[in-house]
């Protein structure tokens, strides 16, 4: 059982998150990765510190963190363990959706339990044949007496194997609708146990086997609202991934500085060689630049500025690519040691690749960013 060694009175600051990550998470993250699981006791400890409720209003028992503070927390967790950060991410996405679009009854029923971490939430959009293309979603919600029957299989559900609540996108008549579905006998997780990265994030396919939910389980109306809801939820997740990617880059830098000053070649520390210094300089610059992009996006979010949407796309595009490059360089600097699956930089390398794909791949980010330019030029 994980025992926290130090009380952490605040989750709102970077310092508290950094301290927790250094003391409690980094020392065990490689083991989590190898075990492909984060123990329940550790997740409960994280919940006890309030991190699952960081973005939920104090009205419902959360910390009410600003985007700036929330991003700093997710950067630190990303530095420690992308799997743990991913669990916080999907949980926060669902919490945000309920707080922004839920009914008063839905907010009162779910948010206090999500804020305390009593239950974990997961986000069910992707399907094997549809990806995240909502137009191709095959999961259905059929109107029946007293509610809805949901039937279908969702893929790549982060946290799906341990979640107590699912936010499910389903075809409902001629439009997409969203439902809050508690885990139960008819929601069957099928763990995905051969992931390249974020191996401890409990990714699973979720089979919804004709699940009956009441009318009140529907979140918001259908149609345009669902499209807005989806775009907004993914924006929350994208910002977390961007921040976590800065953390990966920082982690690569920290490991590489430590290794290159300790390891000697030809009687001189590796860090004395200019080719090593070039890699360290690139990593350090990427950390500062990526953090600046995330903090810009966060400030825009906190101001309610619509430019935050594009700002978040740019932040995620830059930071995910930077993390992948930093991880490549970190493995290179560590040589054969870095090629061991159990090495921290190998974990960063695998996790960083995932960051280039989730919440909008690098290529999709490019298309969106360029698309805005296309609108501006009228071509």
């Amino acid at each position, binding site marked *: 059982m994980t025992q926290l060694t130090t009380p952490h009175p605040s989750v709102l600051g970077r310092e508290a998150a950094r301290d927790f990550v250094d003391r409690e998470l980094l020392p065990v993250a490689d083991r989590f990765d190898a075990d492909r699981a984060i123990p329940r006791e550790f997740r409960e400890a994280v919940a006890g510190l309030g991190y699952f409720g960081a973005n939920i209003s104090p009205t419902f028992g959360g910390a009410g963190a600003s985007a700036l503070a929330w991003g700093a927390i997710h950067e630190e967790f990303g530095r420690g363990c992308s799997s743990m950060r991913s669990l916080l991410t999907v949980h926060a996405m669902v919490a945000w959706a309920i707080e922004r679009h839920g009914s008063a009854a839905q907010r009162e029923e779910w948010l206090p339990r999500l804020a305390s971490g009593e239950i974990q939430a997961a986000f069910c959009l992707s399907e094997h044949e549809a990806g995240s293309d909502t137009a191709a979603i095959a999961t259905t919600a059929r109107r029946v007496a007293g509610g809805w029957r949901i039937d279908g299989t969702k893929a790549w559900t982060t946290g799906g194997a341990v979640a107590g609540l699912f936010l499910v996108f389903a075809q409902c008549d001629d439009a997409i609708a969203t439902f809050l579905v508690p885990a139960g006998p008819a929601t069957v997780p099928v763990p995905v146990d051969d992931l390249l990265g974020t191996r401890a994030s409990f990714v699973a396919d979720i089979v919804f086997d004709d699940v009956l939910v009441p009318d009140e389980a529907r979140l918001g109306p259908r149609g345009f609202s669902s499209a807005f809801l989806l775009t907004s939820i993914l924006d929350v997740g994208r910002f977390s991934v961007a921040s976590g990617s800065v953390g990966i880059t920082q982690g690569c830098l920290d490991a590489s500085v430590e290794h290159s000053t300790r390891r000697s070649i030809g009687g001189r520390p590796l860090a004395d060689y200019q080719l090593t210094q070039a890699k360290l300089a690139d990593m350090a610059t990427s950390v500062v630049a990526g953090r600046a992009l995330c903090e810009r996006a966060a400030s825009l979010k906190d101001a309610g500025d619509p430019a935050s949407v*594009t700002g978040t796309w740019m932040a995620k595009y830059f930071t995910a690519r930077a993390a992948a490059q930093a991880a490549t360089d970190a493995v290179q600097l560590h040589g054969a040691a870095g090629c061991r699956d159990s090495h921290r930089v190998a974990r960063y390398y695998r996790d960083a690749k995932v960051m280039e794909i989730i919440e909008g791949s690098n290529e999709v980010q490019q298309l969106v960013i360029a698309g805005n330019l296309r*609108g501006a030029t*009228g071509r």
Partner: protein
Amino acid sequence: MTEPARDIRDFILARYPHVQLDDDQDIFEIGFINSLFATELVMYVESTFSVLIPNEELTLDNFRSVRAAADLVQRLTDPREAVS
């Protein structure tokens, strides 16, 4: 004091300056507008006019044109609407 139709029109034209836009034109027929810009437009309306758009008003028709969005702002900020 802001004038909703003017502000909303300016916001759209800032992103799509080459578009000929009148207040009744269907902006979703322009061709470039996607769900991301629609999200930005919702955020713009909420932050500029200090309103929270309820789920039932988050409809395509309420954002289909400059006039429709301005009418939405009018409804959400008119105290008589709140009373009724």
